[in-house]
Protein backbone atom coordinates (compact mmCIF):
# COMPACT_ATOMS: atom_id res chain seq x y z
CA UNK A 1 0.00 0.00 0.00
CA UNK A 2 1.36 3.40 -0.93
CA UNK A 3 1.00 6.07 1.72
CA UNK A 4 -1.48 8.77 0.78
CA UNK A 5 -0.02 12.07 -0.29
CA UNK A 6 -3.13 13.81 -1.64
CA UNK A 7 -4.06 15.72 1.56
CA UNK A 8 -0.62 17.41 1.49
CA UNK A 9 -1.94 20.13 -0.84
CA UNK A 10 -4.60 21.14 1.69
CA UNK A 11 -2.05 20.91 4.49
CA UNK A 12 0.20 23.46 2.80
CA UNK A 13 -2.77 25.82 2.44
CA UNK A 14 -3.44 25.53 6.17
CA UNK A 15 0.21 26.14 7.04
CA UNK A 16 0.39 29.27 4.88
CA UNK A 17 -2.90 30.52 6.37
CA UNK A 18 -1.63 30.00 9.95
CA UNK A 19 1.63 31.69 9.06
CA UNK A 20 -0.14 34.78 7.63
CA UNK A 21 -2.54 34.82 10.60
CA UNK A 22 0.40 34.68 13.02
CA UNK A 23 2.12 37.63 11.31
CA UNK A 24 -1.08 39.70 11.23
CA UNK A 25 -2.11 38.94 14.79
CA UNK A 26 1.17 38.93 16.64
CA UNK A 27 3.17 41.49 14.63
CA UNK A 28 0.46 44.14 14.17
CA UNK A 29 -2.69 43.51 16.23
CA UNK A 30 -1.32 41.95 19.47
CA UNK A 31 2.40 42.87 19.49
CA UNK A 32 2.69 42.56 23.29
CA UNK A 33 1.39 39.27 24.59
CA UNK A 34 2.47 36.12 26.39
CA UNK A 35 0.86 33.67 23.97
CA UNK A 36 3.11 33.68 20.91
CA UNK A 37 6.17 35.82 20.08
CA UNK A 38 6.28 38.64 17.49
CA UNK A 39 7.55 37.36 14.11
CA UNK A 40 10.23 40.05 14.02
CA UNK A 41 11.49 39.00 17.47
CA UNK A 42 11.66 35.38 16.31
CA UNK A 43 13.90 36.45 13.42
CA UNK A 44 16.15 38.37 15.77
CA UNK A 45 16.32 35.45 18.22
CA UNK A 46 18.17 33.28 15.67
CA UNK A 47 21.44 34.99 16.45
CA UNK A 48 21.02 34.28 20.19
CA UNK A 49 19.95 30.73 19.42
CA UNK A 50 23.01 30.16 17.30
CA UNK A 51 25.59 31.72 19.60
CA UNK A 52 24.24 31.62 23.09
CA UNK A 53 22.05 28.50 23.02
CA UNK A 54 24.51 26.63 20.71
CA UNK A 55 21.72 25.53 18.39
CA UNK A 56 23.90 23.60 15.91
CA UNK A 57 25.61 21.50 18.56
CA UNK A 58 22.49 20.77 20.59
CA UNK A 59 20.42 20.07 17.49
CA UNK A 60 23.09 17.66 16.23
CA UNK A 61 23.09 15.81 19.56
CA UNK A 62 19.30 15.32 19.58
CA UNK A 63 18.84 14.52 15.88
CA UNK A 64 21.71 12.03 15.87
CA UNK A 65 20.39 10.38 19.05
CA UNK A 66 16.93 10.00 17.47
CA UNK A 67 17.89 8.71 14.03
CA UNK A 68 21.05 6.74 14.91
CA UNK A 69 19.11 4.91 17.60
CA UNK A 70 16.30 4.10 15.14
CA UNK A 71 18.79 2.89 12.52
CA UNK A 72 20.75 0.79 14.97
CA UNK A 73 17.59 -0.64 16.53
CA UNK A 74 16.25 -1.54 13.07
CA UNK A 75 19.44 -3.37 12.07
CA UNK A 76 19.67 -5.17 15.39
CA UNK A 77 16.02 -6.21 15.13
CA UNK A 78 16.68 -7.39 11.60
CA UNK A 79 19.64 -9.47 12.82
CA UNK A 80 17.60 -10.97 15.64
CA UNK A 81 14.40 -11.31 13.62
CA UNK A 82 14.85 -15.07 13.35
CA UNK A 83 14.32 -15.31 17.12
CA UNK A 84 11.94 -12.41 17.68
CA UNK A 85 9.22 -13.54 15.28
CA UNK A 86 9.12 -17.16 16.39
CA UNK A 87 6.18 -18.18 18.52
CA UNK A 88 6.99 -19.78 21.86
CA UNK A 89 10.72 -19.04 21.49
CA UNK A 90 12.26 -17.94 24.80
CA UNK A 91 13.53 -14.66 23.24
CA UNK A 92 10.05 -13.64 22.07
CA UNK A 93 8.50 -14.83 25.36
CA UNK A 94 11.01 -12.73 27.33
CA UNK A 95 10.30 -9.64 25.22
CA UNK A 96 6.57 -10.06 25.58
CA UNK A 97 6.95 -10.23 29.34
CA UNK A 98 8.77 -6.87 29.23
CA UNK A 99 5.96 -5.51 27.07
CA UNK A 100 3.57 -6.13 29.94
CA UNK A 101 5.57 -3.74 32.17
CA UNK A 102 5.54 -1.04 29.48
CA UNK A 103 1.77 -0.76 29.87
CA UNK A 104 2.19 0.54 33.41
CA UNK A 105 5.62 2.20 33.55
CA UNK A 106 6.21 5.22 31.26
CA UNK A 107 9.43 5.15 29.22
CA UNK A 108 10.69 8.37 30.79
CA UNK A 109 10.90 6.58 34.18
CA UNK A 110 13.57 4.33 32.66
CA UNK A 111 15.35 7.55 31.63
CA UNK A 112 15.32 8.75 35.23
CA UNK A 113 16.98 5.53 36.34
CA UNK A 114 19.60 5.94 33.61
CA UNK A 115 20.36 9.47 34.84
CA UNK A 116 20.79 8.07 38.35
CA UNK A 117 22.96 5.14 37.24
CA UNK A 118 25.16 7.04 34.77
CA UNK A 119 25.16 10.69 35.88
CA UNK A 120 28.41 11.66 34.17
CA UNK A 121 28.02 9.78 30.87
CA UNK A 122 28.21 11.84 27.67
CA UNK A 123 26.35 9.18 25.71
CA UNK A 124 23.43 8.72 28.04
CA UNK A 125 20.82 10.20 25.66
CA UNK A 126 22.06 7.91 22.90
CA UNK A 127 21.70 4.96 25.22
CA UNK A 128 18.24 6.04 26.33
CA UNK A 129 17.00 6.67 22.75
CA UNK A 130 18.49 3.38 21.55
CA UNK A 131 16.81 1.31 24.26
CA UNK A 132 13.44 2.97 23.66
CA UNK A 133 13.78 2.46 19.88
CA UNK A 134 14.91 -1.15 20.20
CA UNK A 135 12.27 -2.10 22.73
CA UNK A 136 9.43 -0.44 20.78
CA UNK A 137 10.56 -1.96 17.50
CA UNK A 138 10.95 -5.47 18.89
CA UNK A 139 7.46 -5.35 20.42
CA UNK A 140 6.03 -4.07 17.14
CA UNK A 141 7.81 -6.77 15.13
CA UNK A 142 6.41 -9.39 17.46
CA UNK A 143 2.87 -8.00 17.09
CA UNK A 144 3.10 -7.71 13.30
CA UNK A 145 4.55 -11.23 13.00
CA UNK A 146 1.40 -12.61 14.62
CA UNK A 147 -0.64 -11.06 11.79
CA UNK A 148 1.32 -12.58 8.88
CA UNK A 149 -0.93 -14.44 6.45
CA UNK A 150 -1.11 -18.15 7.19
CA UNK A 151 -0.90 -18.86 3.46
CA UNK A 152 2.69 -17.59 3.26
CA UNK A 153 3.82 -19.70 6.18
CA UNK A 154 1.87 -22.83 5.19
CA UNK A 155 3.22 -22.84 1.66
CA UNK A 156 6.80 -22.30 2.82
CA UNK A 157 6.48 -25.07 5.42
CA UNK A 158 5.08 -27.51 2.87
CA UNK A 159 8.03 -26.79 0.57
CA UNK A 160 10.26 -28.14 3.34
CA UNK A 161 11.81 -24.77 4.19
CA UNK A 162 13.26 -24.63 7.72
CA UNK A 163 11.85 -22.60 10.59
CA UNK A 164 14.69 -20.07 10.78
CA UNK A 165 14.55 -19.42 7.01
CA UNK A 166 10.78 -18.90 7.24
CA UNK A 167 11.27 -16.47 10.12
CA UNK A 168 13.88 -14.48 8.20
CA UNK A 169 12.76 -14.77 4.58
CA UNK A 170 8.99 -14.95 4.93
CA UNK A 171 7.78 -13.45 8.20
CA UNK A 172 10.39 -10.69 8.52
CA UNK A 173 10.00 -9.76 4.84
CA UNK A 174 6.23 -9.86 5.03
CA UNK A 175 6.04 -7.37 7.90
CA UNK A 176 8.47 -4.83 6.41
CA UNK A 177 5.84 -2.39 5.03
CA UNK A 178 4.12 -2.27 8.44
CA UNK A 179 7.43 -1.89 10.30
CA UNK A 180 8.72 0.89 8.05
CA UNK A 181 5.38 2.67 8.43
CA UNK A 182 5.71 2.25 12.20
CA UNK A 183 9.07 4.06 12.10
CA UNK A 184 7.09 7.27 11.50
CA UNK A 185 5.31 6.82 14.83
CA UNK A 186 8.51 5.66 16.48
CA UNK A 187 10.54 8.71 15.46
CA UNK A 188 7.78 10.96 16.87
CA UNK A 189 7.73 9.01 20.15
CA UNK A 190 11.50 9.14 20.48
CA UNK A 191 11.60 12.86 19.79
CA UNK A 192 9.02 13.37 22.55
CA UNK A 193 10.67 11.27 25.25
CA UNK A 194 14.17 12.40 24.33
CA UNK A 195 13.31 16.10 24.63
CA UNK A 196 11.71 15.38 28.02
CA UNK A 197 14.79 13.36 29.00
CA UNK A 198 17.22 16.13 27.97
CA UNK A 199 15.02 18.69 29.70
CA UNK A 200 15.22 16.75 32.96
CA UNK A 201 18.88 15.79 32.69
CA UNK A 202 20.30 19.07 31.38
CA UNK A 203 23.67 18.81 29.61
CA UNK A 204 23.11 18.77 25.83
CA UNK A 205 20.33 18.58 23.27
CA UNK A 206 17.21 20.51 22.32
CA UNK A 207 15.62 19.59 25.65
CA UNK A 208 18.42 21.57 27.29
CA UNK A 209 17.57 24.61 25.10
CA UNK A 210 13.91 24.31 26.13
CA UNK A 211 14.97 24.34 29.75
CA UNK A 212 17.20 27.39 29.32
CA UNK A 213 14.49 29.21 27.37
CA UNK A 214 12.01 28.58 30.18
CA UNK A 215 14.57 29.68 32.79
CA UNK A 216 15.15 32.94 30.86
CA UNK A 217 11.47 33.38 30.06
CA UNK A 218 12.47 33.44 26.37
CA UNK A 219 9.21 32.85 24.45
CA UNK A 220 10.76 33.45 21.00
CA UNK A 221 13.38 30.68 21.49
CA UNK A 222 10.73 28.34 22.86
CA UNK A 223 8.66 29.01 19.75
CA UNK A 224 11.56 28.78 17.27
CA UNK A 225 12.84 25.49 18.68
CA UNK A 226 9.34 24.03 18.44
CA UNK A 227 9.16 25.05 14.77
CA UNK A 228 12.60 23.48 14.13
CA UNK A 229 11.54 20.24 15.85
CA UNK A 230 8.29 20.18 13.86
CA UNK A 231 10.06 20.71 10.52
CA UNK A 232 12.65 18.02 11.35
CA UNK A 233 9.99 15.48 12.26
CA UNK A 234 8.09 16.38 9.07
CA UNK A 235 11.21 15.84 6.93
CA UNK A 236 11.97 12.60 8.76
CA UNK A 237 8.43 11.41 8.03
CA UNK A 238 8.77 12.25 4.33
CA UNK A 239 12.08 10.39 4.16
CA UNK A 240 10.61 7.27 5.77
CA UNK A 241 7.58 7.44 3.42
CA UNK A 242 9.95 7.70 0.46
CA UNK A 243 11.88 4.62 1.59
CA UNK A 244 8.67 2.71 2.16
CA UNK A 245 7.28 3.48 -1.28
CA UNK A 246 10.61 2.87 -2.99
CA UNK A 247 11.83 -0.32 -1.29
CA UNK A 248 8.89 -1.81 0.61
CA UNK A 249 6.19 -1.32 -1.97
CA UNK A 250 4.28 -4.56 -1.72
CA UNK A 251 0.75 -4.95 -0.53
CA UNK A 252 -0.30 -7.94 1.55
CA UNK A 253 -3.93 -8.07 0.38
Amino acid at each position, binding site marked *: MRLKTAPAKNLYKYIISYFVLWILLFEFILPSNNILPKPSVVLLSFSALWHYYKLLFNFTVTISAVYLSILLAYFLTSLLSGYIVRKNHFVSEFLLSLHWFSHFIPAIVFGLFLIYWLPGSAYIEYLFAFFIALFSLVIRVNEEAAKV*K*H*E*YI*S*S*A*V*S*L*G*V*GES*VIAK*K*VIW*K*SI*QPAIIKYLIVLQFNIWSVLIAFEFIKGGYGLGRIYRLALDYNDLSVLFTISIIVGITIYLGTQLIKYFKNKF*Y*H*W*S*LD
Partner: protein
Amino acid sequence: MNREILLEVKNISKTVHGLAGSKVRVLDKVNLKIEKPERLGQIISIIAASASELTALLKIISAIEKPSEGEVHLSGKQYHKSAGDIVFIPEHPSSFPWLNVKQNVEFAINFKENIPGSIDNKVSEAITFVGLEGYETHFPDDNSLGFRFRISLARALVADPKIILLDEPLKNLHGETKKEIFNLITELSKKINVTIIIASMNISDAVLLSDKIFLMTRHPGKIADTIDIDRSNDLNIHSDYFHSLKSEIEKLLTGYENIPLK
Protein backbone atom coordinates in the same frame (compact mmCIF):
# COMPACT_ATOMS: atom_id res chain seq x y z
CA MET B 1 -3.53 -56.18 -10.22
CA ASN B 2 -3.11 -54.02 -7.14
CA ARG B 3 -1.02 -50.92 -7.69
CA GLU B 4 1.49 -49.64 -5.16
CA ILE B 5 0.07 -47.29 -2.53
CA LEU B 6 1.32 -43.72 -2.90
CA LEU B 7 -0.50 -42.04 -0.03
CA GLU B 8 -2.23 -43.59 2.91
CA VAL B 9 -4.13 -41.59 5.49
CA LYS B 10 -4.70 -43.77 8.56
CA ASN B 11 -7.31 -42.90 11.16
CA ILE B 12 -6.62 -39.17 11.10
CA SER B 13 -8.57 -37.21 13.68
CA LYS B 14 -8.24 -33.55 14.55
CA THR B 15 -9.71 -31.72 17.50
CA VAL B 16 -9.37 -27.94 17.77
CA HIS B 17 -10.23 -25.47 20.50
CA GLY B 18 -13.43 -23.61 19.75
CA LEU B 19 -15.04 -20.64 21.43
CA ALA B 20 -15.25 -20.46 25.23
CA GLY B 21 -12.80 -23.31 25.67
CA SER B 22 -14.98 -25.87 23.89
CA LYS B 23 -13.37 -28.61 21.80
CA VAL B 24 -14.46 -29.16 18.23
CA ARG B 25 -13.74 -32.40 16.39
CA VAL B 26 -12.95 -31.29 12.83
CA LEU B 27 -11.85 -34.66 11.45
CA ASP B 28 -12.86 -38.06 12.74
CA LYS B 29 -10.89 -41.16 11.81
CA VAL B 30 -10.30 -40.19 8.20
CA ASN B 31 -8.97 -43.08 6.14
CA LEU B 32 -8.04 -42.95 2.50
CA LYS B 33 -5.64 -44.68 0.16
CA ILE B 34 -4.33 -43.31 -3.11
CA GLU B 35 -2.47 -45.62 -5.45
CA LYS B 36 0.42 -44.62 -7.67
CA PRO B 37 -0.93 -43.42 -11.01
CA GLU B 38 -1.24 -45.82 -13.93
CA ARG B 39 -0.26 -43.17 -16.41
CA LEU B 40 1.91 -40.12 -15.83
CA GLY B 41 -0.18 -38.12 -13.36
CA GLN B 42 -3.60 -38.31 -11.75
CA ILE B 43 -6.12 -35.99 -10.20
CA ILE B 44 -7.98 -36.96 -7.05
CA SER B 45 -10.66 -34.75 -5.52
CA ILE B 46 -12.03 -34.65 -2.01
CA ILE B 47 -15.45 -33.08 -1.86
CA ALA B 48 -17.14 -31.89 1.31
CA ALA B 49 -19.81 -29.43 2.23
CA SER B 50 -17.49 -27.68 4.66
CA ALA B 51 -14.25 -25.94 3.67
CA SER B 52 -12.62 -25.95 7.10
CA GLU B 53 -12.50 -29.75 7.27
CA LEU B 54 -11.02 -30.00 3.79
CA THR B 55 -8.29 -27.49 4.59
CA ALA B 56 -7.53 -29.20 7.89
CA LEU B 57 -7.12 -32.54 6.11
CA LEU B 58 -4.82 -31.10 3.42
CA LYS B 59 -2.65 -29.38 6.05
CA ILE B 60 -2.29 -32.66 7.94
CA ILE B 61 -1.45 -34.61 4.78
CA SER B 62 1.28 -32.10 3.91
CA ALA B 63 2.56 -32.19 7.53
CA ILE B 64 1.96 -28.49 8.06
CA GLU B 65 -0.25 -29.38 11.00
CA LYS B 66 -0.14 -32.36 13.29
CA PRO B 67 -3.19 -34.58 13.68
CA SER B 68 -4.64 -35.28 17.11
CA GLU B 69 -4.57 -38.96 16.17
CA GLY B 70 -3.50 -41.04 13.19
CA GLU B 71 -0.71 -41.09 10.65
CA VAL B 72 0.04 -40.16 7.05
CA HIS B 73 2.22 -42.49 4.98
CA LEU B 74 3.87 -41.56 1.72
CA SER B 75 5.16 -44.47 -0.38
CA GLY B 76 5.05 -46.66 2.72
CA LYS B 77 6.95 -44.29 5.00
CA GLN B 78 5.43 -42.10 7.66
CA TYR B 79 5.28 -38.45 6.52
CA HIS B 80 5.25 -36.30 9.63
CA LYS B 81 7.69 -33.54 8.71
CA SER B 82 7.34 -31.37 5.61
CA ALA B 83 10.12 -32.13 3.19
CA GLY B 84 8.72 -30.83 -0.08
CA ASP B 85 7.39 -34.23 -1.21
CA ILE B 86 3.81 -33.12 -0.62
CA VAL B 87 3.34 -29.45 -1.51
CA PHE B 88 0.28 -27.56 -0.32
CA ILE B 89 -1.11 -24.64 -2.33
CA PRO B 90 -3.62 -22.69 -0.23
CA GLU B 91 -6.91 -21.26 -1.44
CA HIS B 92 -5.74 -17.66 -1.09
CA PRO B 93 -2.67 -16.41 -2.96
CA SER B 94 0.55 -17.55 -1.40
CA SER B 95 3.10 -16.12 -3.81
CA PHE B 96 5.31 -13.67 -1.96
CA PRO B 97 4.68 -10.08 -3.09
CA TRP B 98 8.22 -8.97 -2.18
CA LEU B 99 9.74 -11.39 -4.70
CA ASN B 100 9.32 -11.34 -8.46
CA VAL B 101 8.07 -14.38 -10.37
CA LYS B 102 11.52 -15.94 -10.81
CA GLN B 103 12.57 -15.33 -7.22
CA ASN B 104 9.27 -16.77 -5.99
CA VAL B 105 9.85 -19.96 -7.94
CA GLU B 106 13.51 -20.17 -6.87
CA PHE B 107 12.41 -19.87 -3.24
CA ALA B 108 11.34 -23.53 -3.29
CA ILE B 109 14.87 -24.77 -3.92
CA ASN B 110 17.15 -21.95 -2.82
CA PHE B 111 17.41 -23.28 0.70
CA LYS B 112 17.78 -26.95 -0.18
CA GLU B 113 20.98 -28.90 -0.51
CA ASN B 114 21.91 -31.43 -3.19
CA ILE B 115 19.51 -30.31 -5.88
CA PRO B 116 20.12 -32.49 -8.93
CA GLY B 117 20.58 -30.64 -12.22
CA SER B 118 20.69 -26.96 -12.95
CA ILE B 119 18.47 -24.79 -10.74
CA ASP B 120 18.11 -22.20 -13.50
CA ASN B 121 16.82 -24.83 -15.94
CA LYS B 122 14.33 -26.20 -13.44
CA VAL B 123 13.04 -22.71 -12.67
CA SER B 124 12.73 -21.76 -16.36
CA GLU B 125 10.94 -25.02 -17.18
CA ALA B 126 8.43 -24.53 -14.35
CA ILE B 127 7.80 -20.91 -15.32
CA THR B 128 7.28 -21.90 -18.96
CA PHE B 129 4.98 -24.77 -17.99
CA VAL B 130 2.60 -22.53 -16.04
CA GLY B 131 2.59 -19.98 -18.87
CA LEU B 132 4.55 -17.21 -17.17
CA GLU B 133 7.44 -17.04 -19.64
CA GLY B 134 8.29 -13.38 -20.17
CA TYR B 135 6.92 -12.41 -16.74
CA GLU B 136 9.99 -13.49 -14.74
CA THR B 137 10.70 -10.02 -13.38
CA HIS B 138 7.07 -9.12 -12.62
CA PHE B 139 5.95 -8.78 -9.01
CA PRO B 140 2.75 -10.54 -8.04
CA ASP B 141 1.20 -7.95 -5.74
CA ASP B 142 -1.09 -6.17 -8.18
CA ASN B 143 -1.81 -9.11 -10.42
CA SER B 144 -4.77 -11.42 -10.72
CA LEU B 145 -5.50 -14.50 -8.62
CA GLY B 146 -4.80 -16.64 -11.69
CA PHE B 147 -1.35 -15.07 -12.03
CA ARG B 148 -0.60 -15.71 -8.37
CA PHE B 149 -1.86 -19.30 -8.61
CA ARG B 150 0.45 -19.94 -11.55
CA ILE B 151 3.41 -18.71 -9.47
CA SER B 152 2.45 -21.00 -6.59
CA LEU B 153 2.13 -23.91 -8.99
CA ALA B 154 5.53 -23.23 -10.61
CA ARG B 155 7.07 -23.00 -7.14
CA ALA B 156 5.51 -26.34 -6.24
CA LEU B 157 6.78 -27.95 -9.45
CA VAL B 158 10.44 -27.01 -8.94
CA ALA B 159 10.34 -28.70 -5.54
CA ASP B 160 9.79 -31.93 -7.52
CA PRO B 161 6.97 -33.24 -5.29
CA LYS B 162 5.16 -36.56 -5.49
CA ILE B 163 1.86 -34.93 -4.56
CA ILE B 164 0.50 -31.40 -4.96
CA LEU B 165 -2.44 -30.47 -2.75
CA LEU B 166 -4.71 -27.76 -4.10
CA ASP B 167 -7.14 -26.17 -1.68
CA GLU B 168 -10.14 -25.03 -3.75
CA PRO B 169 -8.01 -23.76 -6.64
CA LEU B 170 -10.94 -22.63 -8.79
CA LYS B 171 -13.19 -21.20 -6.08
CA ASN B 172 -12.39 -17.51 -6.49
CA LEU B 173 -11.72 -17.60 -10.23
CA HIS B 174 -14.18 -16.67 -12.94
CA GLY B 175 -14.56 -16.69 -16.71
CA GLU B 176 -11.47 -17.04 -18.84
CA THR B 177 -9.06 -17.25 -15.89
CA LYS B 178 -10.97 -20.17 -14.39
CA LYS B 179 -10.92 -21.95 -17.74
CA GLU B 180 -7.17 -21.37 -18.12
CA ILE B 181 -6.35 -22.68 -14.64
CA PHE B 182 -8.69 -25.64 -15.20
CA ASN B 183 -6.79 -26.52 -18.39
CA LEU B 184 -3.44 -25.98 -16.66
CA ILE B 185 -4.30 -28.48 -13.92
CA THR B 186 -5.50 -31.02 -16.51
CA GLU B 187 -2.35 -30.55 -18.59
CA LEU B 188 -0.20 -30.92 -15.49
CA SER B 189 -1.63 -34.35 -14.72
CA LYS B 190 -1.02 -35.45 -18.31
CA LYS B 191 2.53 -34.22 -18.69
CA ILE B 192 4.14 -34.45 -15.26
CA ASN B 193 4.51 -37.41 -12.97
CA VAL B 194 2.68 -35.94 -10.03
CA THR B 195 -0.53 -36.74 -8.18
CA ILE B 196 -2.78 -33.76 -7.67
CA ILE B 197 -5.23 -33.82 -4.79
CA ILE B 198 -7.89 -31.15 -4.99
CA ALA B 199 -10.11 -30.15 -2.08
CA SER B 200 -13.31 -28.77 -3.49
CA MET B 201 -16.87 -27.85 -2.65
CA ASN B 202 -17.77 -27.61 -6.32
CA ILE B 203 -19.09 -30.94 -7.62
CA SER B 204 -18.98 -30.01 -11.33
CA ASP B 205 -15.34 -28.94 -11.26
CA ALA B 206 -14.36 -32.05 -9.33
CA VAL B 207 -16.18 -34.40 -11.72
CA LEU B 208 -14.69 -32.76 -14.81
CA LEU B 209 -11.15 -32.78 -13.45
CA SER B 210 -10.78 -35.97 -11.45
CA ASP B 211 -9.93 -39.61 -11.86
CA LYS B 212 -11.32 -40.41 -8.43
CA ILE B 213 -13.43 -38.54 -5.90
CA PHE B 214 -13.60 -39.01 -2.15
CA LEU B 215 -16.70 -37.70 -0.43
CA MET B 216 -16.43 -36.36 3.07
CA THR B 217 -19.10 -35.76 5.70
CA ARG B 218 -19.04 -32.60 7.75
CA HIS B 219 -18.96 -31.84 11.50
CA PRO B 220 -16.81 -33.89 11.81
CA GLY B 221 -15.21 -34.68 8.49
CA LYS B 222 -14.98 -38.36 7.62
CA ILE B 223 -14.50 -40.10 4.27
CA ALA B 224 -17.86 -41.70 3.54
CA ASP B 225 -17.70 -42.75 -0.13
CA THR B 226 -15.33 -43.12 -3.05
CA ILE B 227 -16.31 -42.63 -6.67
CA ASP B 228 -14.10 -43.76 -9.55
CA ILE B 229 -14.49 -41.78 -12.72
CA ASP B 230 -14.13 -43.47 -16.05
CA ARG B 231 -12.14 -40.97 -18.09
CA SER B 232 -12.65 -43.01 -21.23
CA ASN B 233 -16.34 -42.12 -21.05
CA ASP B 234 -17.66 -38.97 -22.69
CA LEU B 235 -17.22 -36.37 -19.94
CA ASN B 236 -18.34 -32.81 -20.46
CA ILE B 237 -21.00 -30.61 -18.92
CA HIS B 238 -23.54 -31.72 -21.53
CA SER B 239 -22.92 -35.45 -21.30
CA ASP B 240 -25.26 -37.88 -19.53
CA TYR B 241 -22.31 -39.44 -17.73
CA PHE B 242 -21.40 -36.07 -16.17
CA HIS B 243 -24.99 -35.46 -15.04
CA SER B 244 -25.43 -38.94 -13.61
CA LEU B 245 -22.16 -38.58 -11.60
CA LYS B 246 -23.12 -35.13 -10.42
CA SER B 247 -26.58 -36.16 -9.21
CA GLU B 248 -25.15 -39.26 -7.52
CA ILE B 249 -22.64 -37.12 -5.59
CA GLU B 250 -25.30 -34.54 -4.68
CA LYS B 251 -27.54 -37.30 -3.39
CA LEU B 252 -24.76 -38.81 -1.29
CA LEU B 253 -23.69 -35.45 0.16
CA THR B 254 -27.29 -34.58 1.04
CA GLY B 255 -27.60 -37.96 2.73
CA TYR B 256 -24.63 -37.19 5.01
CA GLU B 257 -26.47 -34.23 6.46
CA ASN B 258 -28.78 -36.71 8.17
CA ILE B 259 -25.87 -38.32 10.01
CA PRO B 260 -26.32 -37.28 13.64
CA LEU B 261 -23.67 -34.82 14.83
CA LYS B 262 -21.18 -36.33 17.24
